[in-house]
């Protein structure tokens, strides 16, 4: 499942029907959340502005997920990503992976994020704090 969400991701993840124990016999649910750091390169950041080229971004996120489900033998994968502005400290990215055992979920998690950061047409632009407060 792929969902692009305007603004910061809500604290409660979106509803997702695939989960361990839901008839699939899985024993692992791994969640990663990406949080906007308040300092980058020594400069204070107030916010990040996210931009997406749709529908290519969603198509590619979905394709990467489907490939990793097949190659790692996962039960399922759900990704949420912000577009628009999010403040420092807020969540912009959430990835959940359900699997039978932890090893394949952890390996797939790493690979998904690497591929997303290499290929998916999403961009973030920092909004810096005013000079006096940096």
């Amino acid at each position, binding site marked *: 499942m792929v969902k692009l969400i305007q603004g910061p991701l809500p604290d409660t993840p979106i509803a997702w029907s695939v989960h361990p124990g839901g008839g699939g016999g899985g024993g692992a649910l791994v969640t990663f959340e990406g949080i906007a750091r308040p300092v980058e390169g020594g400069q204070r950041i107030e916010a990040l502005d*996210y931009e997406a*080229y749709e529908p*290519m971004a969603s198509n590619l996120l979905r394709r990467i997920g489907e490939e990793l489900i097949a190659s790692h033998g996962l039960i399922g994968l759900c990704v949420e990503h912000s577009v628009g502005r999010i403040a420092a400290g807020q969540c912009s990215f959430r990835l959940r992976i359900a699997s039978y055992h932890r090893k394949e979920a952890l390996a797939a998690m790493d690979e998904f994020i690497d591929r997303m950061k290499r*290929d998916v*047409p*999403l*961009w*973030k632009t920092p909004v810096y704090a005013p000079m006096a407060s940096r």
Partner: protein
Amino acid sequence: MRITIKLFGPQARAAGEQAASIDLPDSDATCAALRRALADKYPPLREGLAACRFAVNHEFVDDRTTVTASDEIALIGQVSGG
């Protein structure tokens, strides 16, 4: 033919626009020709242009790909999701 190329992120900021407009001869309508034409018409795009990829109709393509005026074309530079 006139080709419109969507720009995003660093490339949009460098060009000062969200879309670039290029005139290509029908006889040489490849992404390689687009790349050369972008470098000529938009000098601020030159740095980093070699590392950018083209997407045609939402799929990455190589420079041998031929485009038409009805294709949706985007220049995808370094991405920064997550």
